[in-house]
């Protein structure tokens, strides 16, 4: 190995090998996934999945990105070793099935995160409400004692009540309560971040992560009681 050009050639080959495997190959295979329909389970209705974020939610994704939320929160539900519908992540209530590539079709950028210092948020929109999100951003420990999440008070404004109190003002008590005559209202960042978090869900069953097997459907002329017994 004393030949400079040969050394370069070898390195180039190794680089291209890795590049083809991890960049080009996946791009050819799943780089242009289409939006599909969810797999029907029971009486649910098939729906186009996933759907694009609303404008406000997309702004919220920018807030999520800018403040490095992905440093502590992942957005991927992992499968257990026997089923895509069971496993520790799923028993923690973070989702109903494992995450697959199609779930992220409309995310820009894709913020999967790489460490769980906080819980997974892939389905956070399905287990929270706008009030809870805003309260948590303002003071995480008021709702979850022992939480180590920092508060994001700089997303909120404390202002003097002029005329009628704002309908958006947070309902705060104890040490969080603002001085009398003042109210805490969410700023634009808090609102769009909440819209984004509420939009997070991965609950349609897809071909790659199919629904649990159903019991065989009852015969059309069988009485309902029989069907239940089956």
């Amino acid at each position, binding site marked *: *190995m*004393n030949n*400079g050009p040969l*050394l370069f050639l070898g*390195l*180039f080959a*190794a*680089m291209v*090998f*890795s*590049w083809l*495997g*991890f*960049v080009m190959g*996946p*791009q050819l*295979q*799943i*780089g242009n*996934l289409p939006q599909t329909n969810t797999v029907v389970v029971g009486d649910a209705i098939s729906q186009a999945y996933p759907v694009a974020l609303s404008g406000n939610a997309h702004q919220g994704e920018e807030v999520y*990105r*800018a*403040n*490095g*939320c992905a*440093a*502590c929160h*992942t957005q*991927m539900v*992992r*499968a*257990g070793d026997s089923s895509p519908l069971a496993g*520790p*992540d799923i028993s*923690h209530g973070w989702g109903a099935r*494992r995450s697959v*590539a*199609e779930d*992220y079709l409309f*995310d*820009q*950028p*894709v913020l*999967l*995160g*790489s460490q*769980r*210092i906080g*819980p997974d948020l892939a389905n956070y929109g399905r287990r929270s409400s706008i009030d809870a999100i805003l309260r948590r951003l303002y003071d*995480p*420990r008021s709702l*979850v004692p*022992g*939480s*180590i999440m*920092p*508060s*994001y*008070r*700089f997303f909120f404004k404390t202002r003097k009540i002029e005329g009628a109190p704002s309908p958006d003002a947070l309902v705060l008590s104890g040490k969080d309560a603002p001085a009398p005559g003042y109210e805490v209202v969410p700023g634009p960042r808090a609102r769009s971040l909440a819209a984004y978090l509420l939009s997070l869900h991965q609950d349609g069953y897809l071909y790659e992560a199919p629904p649990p097997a159903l019991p065989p459907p009852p015969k059309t002329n069988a009485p309902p009681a029989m069907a239940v017994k089956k």
Partner: protein
Amino acid sequence: MSATVSPARTASNNPSEPSQAGLNVSCPIGMLYLLGAGLVWLLVALVLGFIDSLKFHAPGFLADHGFLSYGRVHAAAGSALLYGFGAQAALGIGLWLLCRLGRTTLAGPFVVFLGAFFWNFAVTVGVIAILCGNNTGFDAFEMPAVCAPTLFVSYAMIGICAMLTFHQRREGPLYPSQWFVVGALFWFPWIFSTAAILLLYMPVHGVLQAAIAWWYAHNFSMVFLGFSGLASSFYFIPKLLGRPLHSRQLAALAFWTLAVFGSWGGIPDGAPLPSWIASISVVGTVLMAIPMLALGDNFYHTARYGLNTLDADPTLRFTYVGLLFLFVAVAQQIVGALPNVSAITSLTWFGAAQKELFHLGFFAMTVFGAMYYIVPRLLGLGAEAWCPKLTKWHFGLTLAGILISYLALLVAGVEQGIMLAGTNHSFVEVMSSTLMPLRASTLGDLLFLAGTFVFLGNFLRVIGTWCCEFRRRAIKEAK
């Protein structure tokens, strides 16, 4: 220093002939700038990391200002470490090794200096932008799109000079360090341009962004920083022991297997990607055992008669410790990649511990070792320019710091993984039980930071000595 070096080595290794000192001044300024600025960035990264670590003691600490919130500081610390310190130190040491082993001078020293200046400018803009909320959101690639062209161009300026230096070498046969430097220099522009184009300028659709970001981060650490650090180990261990390297063939095996398998990894367990991508990542990571065994065997046979010199020379000491941490870090990565283990450890502090050991334990320690040798020689001074007391403190503090920090994070990671794999603990319970080791790791961070400050002091002392020397000589020549 002079007291501890054996007489035989002092005779052969002391290049500080006064006549040469003046000649080399114009040449080393670029390399010195890269190394010195890298050291300052390491301190910035450590201070930011320390601020972040304090938030596990009090989540409300500095939380009321957006630019000091956890997520932003975390990203800024990572960028300062990888781009401010890692890349610059890799380039500085690489250039020096190419000059030294090629027995030639640096080509285009002014271009190198300019490139280093622009690189620092871009990293400064990037880190400030991250703190102001311009994070791209990708781990290890956080600096905003505006920085990428400047980073690329300034890298190209330095890289082209490095290639010209390599080309004008006067020594025909290549020594393994040269392969590793060339490999590192070659690798970075590819992965960086791929990441910049496919993540920032023409982003790919959907989850591939995450796959490319993981691939990039893994290649940056494992191949770019790994090659650079190993180039230094391959040079200094035989050099300072005064023995030949045991096997060229083993070095070649380690080089090629590291290039091939080290670049196939980084996808965490359970990533929302078709299972073949994660499986290939697992196989690539496990096969990293081959280069590590080859390196271990090679270095063991090179150094086994010289282990009693461990205390003799700070360069050797730091390089040994760095290598040892490299083996531990890669071993941990291999174990953590096995499916049964990764189901528990992936996405926990386990990975953070591994990264910390690789970046600070292996890479930073190796760079410290190399700087102890390189810096005085760039300035035409002897190794006695370092204050031996400060050197000892530096070694002790950084070693204790990385050990405490690593073990604490490892404990936190394993504990978190095991508790989360069960179902009888709520997430808050799990996190509160990891707080204790996380707080212990703050102590480690602080010790490492203190050690690095000591090193900066020592570094400035060497620069000061050189300034006095330079002025003295200038006055003498004027007379």
